[in-house]
């Protein structure tokens, strides 16, 4: 058998994917795993119950590519109630195998080779390969923190064990740079809000500004990744924050992606949704036909049951409160750690990001232990943490086109039990 069996597009992606690699390292070195974004507390019993019951009664044969009718109905009703979006079940919604699969289908459906896609860096590191696989080009427009916060300044802001997001925590979009990068070839812009990894929630003003800019580029579609839409802190309520899919000037050009797995703290569920105008959803359904063909009906009706059961939103208020506590706990622990980190208060999501510019890292960690190649500071830091401190975090340079910028940051997950976070904080003291 010849060499180069594998297609060229896959060549940069043959190594073990970053999250899996760091999870393996966490297990191997008995680290506290604050890396991969999965909750390590139990998923809700009502989800397990729903799957167990549906397994005994729901059909096990092919169902509709776009999604099981019961799931599409339950999801549409849920989104209507909590997002204020009315969805035509036959035309404006499709279910796929996790938000990941939804995104893969969106890119296949909408991107021609040489189309350009704008990502706001730090952008979830799965977007770029998906864009490349369609022969399209990704362009990173960086967000930057408005300032570096000293530990003292953050500590000062704590009141009764809580801390509120403020201007000092903002990460700003460079709109001039964005306008420079937009052109005739731009087909799509990805807006992830709450944003992985920095926890940014875009404001109405920011979306207004984006809308104005996009008016000059009417071919641009907005792909709104709302995987964390249920985890928003401070004054925002779950699901209730500024969105492209409800923004008067953006909604008709937006496809909004959500994740039932994330909503129900069950990242292995693999049920996600795309909603938006029929002209986009049509293409996404077709892409899905030739990916998965259809989803497992039991998982779908079980998810439908969960959406029906939680439509009053109470479950999500409790979950949000839990995540907000965990984020505060972790933030405090990082501030009190012996590492000279700079922090920001997140507005939502599962993660917070710290700047590591002022952390001293032993030289040996700058060399990859497999092949000796030079590592960026964020990777060096992550290996330093995994080997000497016993805590796993995720390096952020993969989220940036500009690796030098990205190498200043690492990501920590707070979707973990109090025990886990405490353990991490103890090791970091």
């Amino acid at each position, binding site marked *: *058998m*010849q060499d180069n*069996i*594998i*297609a*060229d597009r*896959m060549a940069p*992606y*043959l190594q073990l*994917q970053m999250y*899996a690699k760091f999870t393996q390292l966490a297990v191997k070195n008995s680290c506290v795993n604050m890396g*991969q974004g*999965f*909750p390590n507390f139990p*998923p809700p019993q009502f*989800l*397990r119950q729903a*799957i*167990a019951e549906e*397994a*005994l009664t729901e*059909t*096990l*044969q*092919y*169902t*509709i*590519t776009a999604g099981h009718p019961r799931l599409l109905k339950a999801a549409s009703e849920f989104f209507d109630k909590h997002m204020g979006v009315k969805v035509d079940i036959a035309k404006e919604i499709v279910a796929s*195998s996790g938000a990941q*699969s939804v995104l*893969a289908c969106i890119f*296949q459906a*909408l991107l*021609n*080779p040489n189309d350009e896609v704008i990502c706001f860096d730090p952008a979830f590191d*799965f977007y770029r390969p998906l864009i490349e*696989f*369609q*022969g399209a080009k990704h362009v990173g427009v960086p967000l930057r923190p408005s300032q570096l916060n000293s530990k003292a300044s953050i500590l000062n802001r704590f009141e009764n064990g809580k801390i509120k997001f403020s201007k000092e925590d903002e990460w700003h979009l460079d709109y001039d740079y964005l306008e420079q990068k937009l052109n005739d070839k731009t087909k799509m812009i990805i807006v992830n809000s709450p944003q992985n990894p920095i926890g940014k929630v875009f404001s109405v003003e920011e979306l207004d500004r984006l809308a104005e800019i996009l008016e000059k580029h*009417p071919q641009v579609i907005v792909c709104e990744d709302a995987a964390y839409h249920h985890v928003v802190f401070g004054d925002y309520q779950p699901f209730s924050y500024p969105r492209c899919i409800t923004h008067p000037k953006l909604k008709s050009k937006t496809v909004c992606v959500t994740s039932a797995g994330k909503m129900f703290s*069950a*990242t*292995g*569920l*693999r049920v996600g949704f795309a909603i938006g105008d029929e*002209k*986009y959803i*049509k*293409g996404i359904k077709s892409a899905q*036909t*030739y*990916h*998965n*063909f*259809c*989803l*497992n*009906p*039991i*998982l779908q009706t079980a998810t439908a049951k969960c959406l029906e059961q939680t439509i009053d939103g109470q479950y999500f208020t409790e979950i949000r409160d839990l995540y907000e506590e965990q984020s505060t706990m972790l933030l405090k622990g990082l501030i009190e750690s012996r590492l000279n980190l700079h922090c920001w208060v997140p507005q939502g999501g599962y993660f917070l990001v710290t700047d590591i510019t002022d952390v001293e890292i032993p030289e040996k960690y700058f060399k990859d232990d497999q092949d000796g190649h030079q590592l960026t500071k964020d990777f060096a830091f992550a290996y330093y943490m995994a080997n000497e401190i016993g805590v796993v975090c995720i390096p952020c340079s993969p989220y940036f086109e500009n690796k030098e910028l990205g190498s200043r940051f690492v990501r920590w997950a707070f979707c973990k039990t109090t025990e886990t976070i405490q353990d991490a904080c103890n090791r970091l003291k």
Partner: protein
Amino acid sequence: MQPIANRMLNYLQPQMYAKFTMLANQKGCVNLGQGFPNFPSPQMLRDALSEEAQTESLQYTMTSGHPKLLNSASKFFEQQIGCKVNVDKEIMVSSGAQAVLSCVMQGVLNPGDEVILFDPAFDLYRPMIEFQGAKHIGVPIIPKKLNNKQEIIKRYRNGKFQYSQDDDWELDFNYLEKVINKKTKLLLLNSPMNPIGKVFSTEEYNQLADILDKHPQVVVCEDAAYHHITFGKYQPFNYPRCITHPRLKDRTVCVTSAGKMYSATGLRIGFAVGNEEIIKGIKAAQTYHIFCLNPVIQTATARCLDQTIDGKYFQSVKNLYEEQANMLLKGLVESRLNMNYWVPQGGYFVVTDISEIQIPEKYFNDNGFRLTRDFAFAYYMINEFGVVCIPCSPYYENKALGQNYVRWAFCKTSETIQEAINRLK
């Protein structure tokens, strides 16, 4: 302004099987179209799913598959297929054989690569090949002869049609040699073959191996979705395969479907087994498709594989399908339709030749668009007989050839098949 990518433009209409199933429901037809069983899935699968739902992790698992499932599948394949699989390197699970194939295409095909298909080839292959910028080439498999009613009924003995050489569909190896070239990257074959039910012989694989020896860059993708349903002299799983052929195995990736194996097409669990390098590329593709599968579905499937590893379950399933195949074939032979027939060697389907059927002219017209004969026949069946079958021209590059065939599914209850037969009398 039309936003959809060019690659999808030919594929925006409802997919054929879904379309015909919808029609079947709308018009109260007997649905012998889409290939799903309408008898219950085994209780062991439901029980396994229900139990695992209570205890198995619901968080991300490994991209290549849950370790339990990889282990169970490897053991099963070793026992039943005789194929030793390195669990870490030579197997991957995906969301049905469909998703496996999608990952194979993405993992292996560069733009400009060529893929050889044996027509009639499952109609979902071609779009997936196109989506990777590759080119598909159809090499037709042609029936040795047409068997009319009188000829085929002679082979009906003791409730079964005896397979004979008269049922062979033959591969044109000369044509294959002509179209295979430096750009050929993949050869995709399906055995037992959807829709004709052909099981390739050892001799055919030997000849194939001879040809491929001259083209070392060609990967063989063996679609074995129906590997548990083989009739006559073949036992479930036990028939000539590329993945076990001494000269083909090292270049082969073999695709199987747990959903089909357990008569639960909605399960969405399939496997790729084979060459480590190919599997590496497929795993990378899967990472960015679905990232990982649901763990509960996987461990439940693992349990079913463990429980059925002695193969007895599959003996009884194969016997059931063989009965249904014979029941349907007899009914088609005895129908008032003047078709030509072949006895299938496996799979879920029977194909008939419709070249001598008088089809009312109106069925050739779809909103001013002229339909091929097979589609006209399918609509004729729906509207005047109340039975759904699937037109075969989508399985062919050469539509003039393919339009003479339609496909009938026998993965149905006796009641369903009997009802269809009554409507066709």
